[in-house]
């Protein structure tokens, strides 16, 4: 059985996602020693999916600009992954340990997280549900899957949600017009869990039960050494106050793309 990581990387007017993906790929290979397959606009075009990349426009706090949100096509990872066992990761989910290697050979055919944890204690990053009275969020940041019929159905549902987004927005009562993989994955997970939760048959979380997440305002101050970074964490509701936090040997979802790119040379140097 082949195994590996897949990252989608579609550049927009400002953000070089391909470079971020390559930087993260070097971190993944360094820590997990598995191959990484990056799906760029070129691969998407070859597969005939160019029209499914662009989702719309959104404001990026890290760039203080409204830019293209090129985050589509994730539902086609079932087809586009060259691996039998795939871990599909967001480009900006920086891998700084080997814990996700526990997924390989797992009896579960699909694993996805429903919990995140903020970098600053008790800080609010996002709701834990699509709607206060609604279903749990599932985070498409990291999804493990095998190529089985159930998993194919999961990604088919994600695509169906994408194609009927306004309908699902009404039914599940979430906000915003912009398609989000997290919402589509949440709905797909919910449906495949027989429209319920807290049962023995739930689609489980990855071996890392909570994804450590920083907000767009937080910045990497320094890569001290491999898998050890200093992060400037802006304090919630205090725009000019911050603390410096040390993150060591822990995977972290960095919503600030600019700071990853700014650290590019250092990452390349450390994870050569």
């Amino acid at each position, binding site marked *: 059985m082949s195994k590996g990581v897949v990252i989608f990387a579609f550049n927009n007017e400002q953000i070089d996602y391909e470079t971020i993906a390559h930087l993260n790929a070097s971190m993944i290979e360094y820590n997990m020693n598995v191959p990484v397959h990056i799906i760029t606009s070129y691969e998407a075009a070859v597969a005939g999916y160019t029209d499914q990349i662009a989702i719309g426009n959104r404001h990026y706090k890290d760039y203080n600009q409204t830019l293209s949100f090129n985050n589509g096509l994730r539902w086609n990872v079932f087809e586009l992954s060259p691996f039998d066992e795939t871990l599909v990761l967001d480009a900006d989910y920086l891998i700084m340990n080997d814990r996700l290697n526990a997924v390989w050979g797992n009896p579960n055919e699909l694993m996805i997280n429903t919990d995140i944890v903020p970098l600053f204690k008790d800080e609010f990053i996002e709701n834990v549900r699509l709607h206060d009275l609604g279903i749990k969020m599932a985070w498409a940041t990291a999804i493990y899957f095998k190529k089985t019929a159930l998993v194919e159905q999961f990604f088919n549902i994600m695509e169906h949600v994408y194609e009927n987004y306004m309908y699902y927005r009404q039914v599940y009562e979430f906000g915003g017009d912009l398609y989000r993989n997290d919402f589509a994955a949440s709905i797909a997970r919910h449906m495949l869990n027989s429209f319920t*939760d807290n049962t023995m048959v739930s689609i489980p979380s990855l071996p890392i039960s909570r994804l450590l997440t920083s907000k767009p305002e937080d910045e990497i101050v320094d890569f001290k050494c491999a898998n050890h970074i200093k992060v400037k964490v802006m304090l919630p509701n205090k725009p000019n106050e911050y603390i410096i936090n040390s993150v060591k040997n822990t995977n972290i979802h960095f919503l600030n793309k600019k700071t990853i790119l700014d650290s590019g040379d250092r990452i390349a140097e450390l994870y050569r």
Partner: protein
Amino acid sequence: MNDRGYFIIAQNNQEYDYTRMAYALALSIKNTQSTVKNVSIALAGADEHLLTKEQRWIFDEVIEFPWGDDAGADNWKINNKWKYVHCTPYKETVILDADMLFLSDYSHWWDSMSMQSIVATSNVLTYRNEIAQSSYYRKTFISNNLPNIYTAFMYFRKNNELIWEVTKLTQLIMQNWQDFYLKYLDATRPTWLSADVAYALAIKLLDVGSECTTKTLTPTFVHMKTRMQYTDNLVDEDWTKYIPTYFTADCQLKVGNYQQYYPFHYHIKTWLTDDVIKKLEDAFNG
């Protein structure tokens, strides 16, 4: 005498037609249960005419509960709920509140329940299938160390001394509830007669809590009282204002996009529309 069955005491008041709710519940039991599908109803003698022909037909037995109507002119008619054991037609009985629906087959619960002489539901669920742990409606239970029981779904075996002892004391409590509440409960006591509180107090005074409760999840039901739903956004008691429901032609229920499998205690009586009853009838009539 049948061995096992469900039993409902229903009394209409000025606002709500409990016999109609019991009828819907009975239909849902007949539609979903594979082995234990007996269901009977007890009414005050004066109320028997309230059952329509169709409603009467769904129940295995329609029973007049004994010793008259303790509720009298009260609008909140709980007072006869100590009489279950005296009039149930079954050797083993699960008593139910009328404002519930069955949504899948719970027949397999009976064998585990029958290992005790009484099993009161001790855990209830939110519509999202979480164990409801809100203390909002249970302040008296916590403050007075009462067993956390829900009599909306409670099992008992008739041929056992324990249910008769619990019933005898519950009768005393229900008939003198203000005196008992004042003597045995602190200031958190309710200002109305509650069947859960009366049974729980009887069980506590008899010191038989562990014999009457269970640490297992089942029996259980989805309890739709709003503040049990783990959200601060439901500001009044009518959850139907906030959470959409879908009751399909094949009698599947989704609440807020969650499929419901456990007994559903809808609590807000207006939720039971004629459309829901029609679907239950159609399913029953095949």
